[in-house]
């Protein structure tokens, strides 16, 4: 057996070795049922040494479930896994790790109270005498993070990191385990282009050492760039598996969704200039955003671009009363004072958090409870909640937002990521808001769903609502927004409109290469 | 003599049930009286809820500098060491009510006590005499030594008669617990003649339980301590409460007075003063009735 930790001096494999290498792992006829719902049906998959094998599919197609089975986190209902030709069954993730299979989870699994270095070495601390060698671990952690293009203090407490930073820490942690097969479940969903680039380089490095890589992403160009082989899942079935060179991103999209996704972004008729709905002047969110001023018009889609850490999320949270803030906010010309979220919600300004698991949905409650949580007032009859109307609303939401769920009585945490996002949108739309602020609307969302969400955002604008989209994906901002404001270091540094809406312009503003006129 | 500066520390249990509340009441009352009487005298009264904190309190009193200590221990044995320390420092020590297993002059100068075994014995003898064939249920206090002494005394009191103890259970000197235990006794035993519940607080719960069950087989109950409510009932001739056994909380006051006398009256005070466990009956009840005591 050949285990290879990062930087353990494993020699690179030659191309000949790679092509001739025997399969590291084979899945034969894997199936998985939850309750009565079969989410994986008869999957056959081969992982070869020195190959990046991408798995793509719609939200809820069963990708994460399959990966969890391969990494020993779940037991398959049927089928078997072979390693080096022998059937194996894992007693748990640690058992799989011992055999060299490691998984970067889609969810972030870190202990919030420990530091970065403590998390990276958790469970395999370096020892010095009877104590632990914190110095060595800090150094090792710092190096592992640098390799991934990150810049995080190894002594920082994880609960204080942004989601992107946590993701990097999590990848660094997994790559320190000696491995033969590394599984990445949407590692780049919350990373910046720079960090993504660094990660892809790392993946190429480990591939060169003969490690087998399974790679899940909804960013199809990225898949095209890194993968040697692409396997497509749809509704729990394996529908295609091709060499990556044979597929273009558009083909992948078609295979995933089962139809052509020719046009990702909806048509937007150039909106005529209408009255101002929201007017923000000199808004300060202490420690995060300074002196932000902007206007939002009726029926407009306004984008907020910027690098991770630019303070966009905090600005929006300050605006709706989730954080202390100072400044003037006028809604329909009337000054408003959003001290508490419920005042802004009542006024018709809804904010959808980027952290849908931590702040968006009650993962241990069912879909109905989640859907109506923010708008319960609408379902209260004389005294009590009208459950029948709640159920009807859920049916309606499942239809309107195309929430894919096996059963209607599952818990929100059991929905796939994309469907969670759709449920969150549905939940906030129950409030019938006038202004909708959506933070990272398509993080971790498949291309088919993305199309739907964009269409949906456009429809909201057409209905006369005003939308703010905060996103780190520039193409999507350019694709759907009427105007884009760019933030850097807590300040709005410029606005791009019309033909200036291109990635180059935005990046220059976001990095400070170019300073724009304040919006 | 009036010029002589003397500090007496008084350490007593916190007022956690009726009887200890009486102790606190009397200690405070007499402290005031004594300080009026002797200009140079300073009396510091401190209460503590459990042995460990009482040991602390004794230590704290010693730090303040005391010439005499009057202590009614929550639980005597655990406090012997703390008392010993004060005694070794040369202070006069008066021990009240609860005796440690080693109770001699090396530990204290004066011992003032109600008579715990006698409290049980008097009750036992009264029951044996009044209703020689009674079937009795017993409600105990808390599992600490004085409770055990009372039980032993009771057994001695009924020895030789045909009084039969059906059962003993802890009522924790708490009315609510006594109510519950009595209710269950009433369920369990179709016939009960007499209840010995040792303590006036618990008697309140016992009487309510009996009244609620509308049982007529119970002839009377015997409690103890001498609370104003129970003494009043005895005085009024309540059939259910014909007697009460005195275990006066004022004994702490006696000890304080004797200690003050040691410092000011030049009379040698030492040895043991055992107060009787007087049987309060309709005839003598009036002299034990203190209407403005909290107990």
């Amino acid at each position, binding site marked *: 057996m050949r285990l290879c930790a990062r930087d353990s001096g494993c020699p690179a494999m030659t191309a000949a070795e790679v092509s001739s290498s025997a399969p590291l792992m084979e899945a034969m006829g894997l199936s998985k049922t939850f*309750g009565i719902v079969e989410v994986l049906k008869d999957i056959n998959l081969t992982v070869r040494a020195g190959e990046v094998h991408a798995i793509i599919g719609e939200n809820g197609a069963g990708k994460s479930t399959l990966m969890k089975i391969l990494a020993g*986190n779940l037991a398959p209902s049927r089928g078997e896994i072979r390693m080096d030709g022998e059937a194996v069954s894992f007693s748990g993730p640690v058992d799989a790790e011992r055999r060299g299979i490691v998984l970067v989870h889609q969810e*972030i*699994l870190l*202990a*919030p109270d420990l530091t970065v270095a403590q998390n990276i070495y958790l469970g395999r601390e370096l020892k010095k005498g009877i104590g632990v060698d914190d110095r060595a671990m800090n150094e090792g952690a710092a190096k592992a993070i640098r390799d991934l293009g990150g810049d995080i203090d190894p002594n920082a407490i994880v*609960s204080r990191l942004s989601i992107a930073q946590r993701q990097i820490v999590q990848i660094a942690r997994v790559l320190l385990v000696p491995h033969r097969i590394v599984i990445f479940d949407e590692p780049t969903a919350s990373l910046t282009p720079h960090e993504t680039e660094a990660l892809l380089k790392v993946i190429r490095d480990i591939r060169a050492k003969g490690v087998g890589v399974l790679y899940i992403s909804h960013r199809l160009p990225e898949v095209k760039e890194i993968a040697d082989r692409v396997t497509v899942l749809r509704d729990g079935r394996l529908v295609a598996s091709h060499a990556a060179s044979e597929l273009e991103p558009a083909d992948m999209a078609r295979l995933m969704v089962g139809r052509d996704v020719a046009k990702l972004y909806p048509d937007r008729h150039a909106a005529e200039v209408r009255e101002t709905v929201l007017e923000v002047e000199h808004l300060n969110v202490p420690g995060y955003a300074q002196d932000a001023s902007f206007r939002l018009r009726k029926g407009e889609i306004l984008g907020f671009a910027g690098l991770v850490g630019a303070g966009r999320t905090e600005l929006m949270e300050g605006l709706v009363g989730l954080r202390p803030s100072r400044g003037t906010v006028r809604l329909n010309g009337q000054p408003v004072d959003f001290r*508490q*979220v*419920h005042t*802004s*919600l*009542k006024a018709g300004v809804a904010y959808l958090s980027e952290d849908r*698991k*931590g*702040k*968006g949905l*009650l*993962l*241990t*409650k069912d879909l109905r409870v989640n859907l109506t*949580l*923010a708008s*319960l007032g609408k379902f*209260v009859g004389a*005294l*009590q*909640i009208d459950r029948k109307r709640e159920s009807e609303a859920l049916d309606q939401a499942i239809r309107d937002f195309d929430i894919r769920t096996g059963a209607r*009585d599952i818990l929100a*945490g*059991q929905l796939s990521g994309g469907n969670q996002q759709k449920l969150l949108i549905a939940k906030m739309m129950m409030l019938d808001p006038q202004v909708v602020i959506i933070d990272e609307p398509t993080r971790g969302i498949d291309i088919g769903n993305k199309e739907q969400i964009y269409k949906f955002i456009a429809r909201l604008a057409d209905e006369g609502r005003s939308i703010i989209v905060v996103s780190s994906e520039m193409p999507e901002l350019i694709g759907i927004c009427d105007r884009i404001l760019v933030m850097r270091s807590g300040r709005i540094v410029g606005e791009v409109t019309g033909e200036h809406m291109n990635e180059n312009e935005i990046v220059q503003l976001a990095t400070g290469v170019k300073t724009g006129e304040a919006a | 003599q009036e010029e002589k500066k003397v500090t007496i520390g008084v350490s007593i249990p*916190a*007022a*956690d*049930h*009726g009887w*200890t*509340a*009486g102790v*606190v*009441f009397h200690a405070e009352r007499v402290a005031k009286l004594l300080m009026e009487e002797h200009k140079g005298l300073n009396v510091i009264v401190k209460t503590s809820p459990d042995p460990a904190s009482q040991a602390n309190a004794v230590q704290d009193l010693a730090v303040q500098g005391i010439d005499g200590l009057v202590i009614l221990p929550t639980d005597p044995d655990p406090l012997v060491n703390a008392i010993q320390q004060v005694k070794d420092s040369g202070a006069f020590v008066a021990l009240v009510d609860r005796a440690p297993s080693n109770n001699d002059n090396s530990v204290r100068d004066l011992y003032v006590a109600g008579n715990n075994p006698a409290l049980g014995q008097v009750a036992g003898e009264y029951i044996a005499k009044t209703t020689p064939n009674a079937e009795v249920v017993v409600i*105990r206090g808390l599992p600490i030594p004085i409770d055990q002494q009372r039980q032993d005394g009771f057994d001695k009191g009924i020895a030789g008669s045909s009084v039969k103890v059906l059962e003993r*259970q*802890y009522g924790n*000197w*708490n*009315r*609510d617990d006594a*109510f519950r235990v009595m*209710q*269950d*006794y009433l*369920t*369990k035993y179709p016939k009960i003649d007499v209840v010995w519940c040792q303590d006036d*607080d618990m008697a*309140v719960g016992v009487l*309510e339980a009996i009244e*609620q069950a509308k049982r007529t087989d119970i002839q009377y109950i015997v409690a103890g301590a001498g609370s104003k409510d129970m003494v009043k009932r005895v005085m009024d001739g309540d059939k259910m409460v014909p007697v009460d056994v005195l275990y006066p909380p004022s004994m702490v006051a006696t000890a304080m007075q004797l200690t003050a006398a040691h410092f000011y009256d030049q009379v040698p005070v030492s040895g043991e003063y055992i107060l009787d466990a007087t049987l309060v009956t309709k005839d003598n009840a009036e002299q034990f009735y203190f209407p403005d005591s*909290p*107990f």
Partner: protein
Amino acid sequence: MSSVATETTKAPKTSKDWDMAAVAPFIALALLLVLGYFANPNFISVANLMNVITRSAFIAIIALGATYVISSGGLDLSVGSMVAFVASLMILFMNSGTIADPMFMLITAMLLAIALGAACGLFNGLITTIGRIEPFIATLGTMGIYRGLTTWLSQGGAITLRDRELQALYRPVYFGSIAGIPVPIIIIFVTAAIAAFVLYRTRYGRHVIAVGSNEDVARYSGISVNRVRTIAYVVQGLCVAVAVLLYVPRLGSTSATTGILWELQAITAVVVGGTALRGGVGRIWGTVCGAFILEIVGNIMLLSNFISEYLIGAIQGAIIIIAMLVQRSLMRK
């Protein structure tokens, strides 16, 4: 606990699992009833069962409030002393004789008790929410305060309702019965029904559960977390007041020891009833069942003839553990 790792790996797979969790306390209760019958056939008599359920009223009603506090993610250790404090003030007021008409006096005193309970609960709530002190410590502090004030009010002794007429008027509230069912039992079930309705059917109840299961999600959904939590403490205070309304007519007096350790019993009842201490789940009927279980364990112990009085505490502890083990093993199925 935080947003970092949120995978619900061991989340119950289907709703069936939850049903089991809800049913488990009732199965434990049934087993206890059988056990009780073997310990002493008198146990199963209507009179005894009525007695037991009647006297579980205090803990059961207090535990209903505790269900709110706990499922909203809080904890209240002060309820025992709150009972003593509210009851003492109520009796002192009745003794004050400020109102001549006994009926009117009684009603005023009851309203006073309810207002006091709500105020004490509000105080707890504000300290934990606005003061941002861990509920465990905050209510440990107020436990000391309420108990201390009671001791001071009673000067360490007992506070007894003196007015005979009032006492006679008030007695039936505990000792009376309607259609053969003791009043306290009726009050338990009425209170529980109201509590269940509010928790399961109203907006506020939904908010309690949301706040208890994830504070951030609740906040981002526009729920005022502090308000919901504070009200939960007020509900607890009201339940304490209801318990006081039953407690005072029983013995007509309070002392510094009234209600001691009731907080632990109430919390035990809640947990035995299937509500998790970490919040986000509330089982009203389970709580009532839990309170019955606790009282019945004590009752069986006293009625059976083979347990030394010294060992009762030990066996009671063991039975609680065994009951929980049985529950767990039922749920695993």
